[in-house]
């Protein structure tokens, strides 16, 4: 067991598409804006620099809950097999940042995608709690919005 296993969430899915295509869907604003985010949200890319150390800035919008600024900084891009990034609210040294590793494994014409999200502190969890609380009610999202609005 790795030392992060206790604070890691793993989500996997097999997609009926070759991995080059699945990988492309993650690193092209034309594509990622079409699927990123849960039901009821739209994602609009402000800018994307898909290189090691580059960043993707985007805004997630919900008719009822409003807008949420996000930033993803790419730590490692290995086409078409691995993506490592830090996800935060777009400010430096965000205590609520969390690390994600996405692996793409070819299975014939299909692709198994595995997403490891590693949370290292309660602050991160609190933020993601809001981020993930789409069905969880307006209150959590309002708290998230307040936190995102706070100057750091």
């Amino acid at each position, binding site marked *: 067991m790795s030392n992060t296993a206790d604070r890691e969430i793993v989500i996997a899915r097999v*997609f009926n598409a070759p991995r080059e295509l699945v990988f492309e869907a993650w690193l092209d604003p034309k594509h990622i804006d079409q699927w990123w985010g849960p039901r009821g949200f739209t994602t609009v890319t402000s800018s994307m620099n898909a290189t090691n150390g580059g960043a993707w800035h985007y805004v997630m919008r919900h008719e009822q809950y409003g807008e949420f600024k996000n930033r993803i900084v790419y730590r490692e891009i290995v086409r078409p097999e691995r993506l490592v990034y830090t996800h935060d609210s777009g400010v430096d040294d965000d205590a609520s940042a969390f690390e994600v590793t996405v692996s793409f494994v070819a299975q014939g014409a299909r692709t198994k995608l595995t997403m490891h999200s590693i949370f290292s502190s309660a602050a991160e969890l609190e933020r993601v709690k809001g981020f993930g609380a789409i069905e969880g009610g307006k209150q959590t999202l309002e708290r998230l919005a307040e936190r995102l609005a706070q100057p750091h």
Partner: protein
Amino acid sequence: MRSDRLNAVFSALADPTRRAILARLATGAANVMELAQPFDMSQPSVSKHLRVLEHAGLIVRGRDAQRRPCRLEPAPLKAVAEFVERYRQHWEQSFDRLELHLQRMKTDEALKPKGKPRRGQKHTLATNDSRFTK
């Protein structure tokens, strides 16, 4: 749940012995001596783990100074489970959308002309190519 409390819950859960103690307590209350037995541990080290679990609000200890039975407190575990579930839902829904989008991408790929058009192939294919129209 407050952030420091959540932190305490996660660090308490990070230890396999403490998770085993919680699993034991899920079957019913027990005192330190009963808990120490299956783990081949001294009572003081079990007590140390119990203090961590108690601080995180994961267990409640009885007032009886002699026995001090411990029982599981499910609320913090429930909060953690709910958080994980919400996060999972967020991504399951995104991946549903990704699945649909990949089908559209595959259709677009299939419409791209491959090399020189063969005789009889309709040229309208090339003008429908997303690379030229977008």
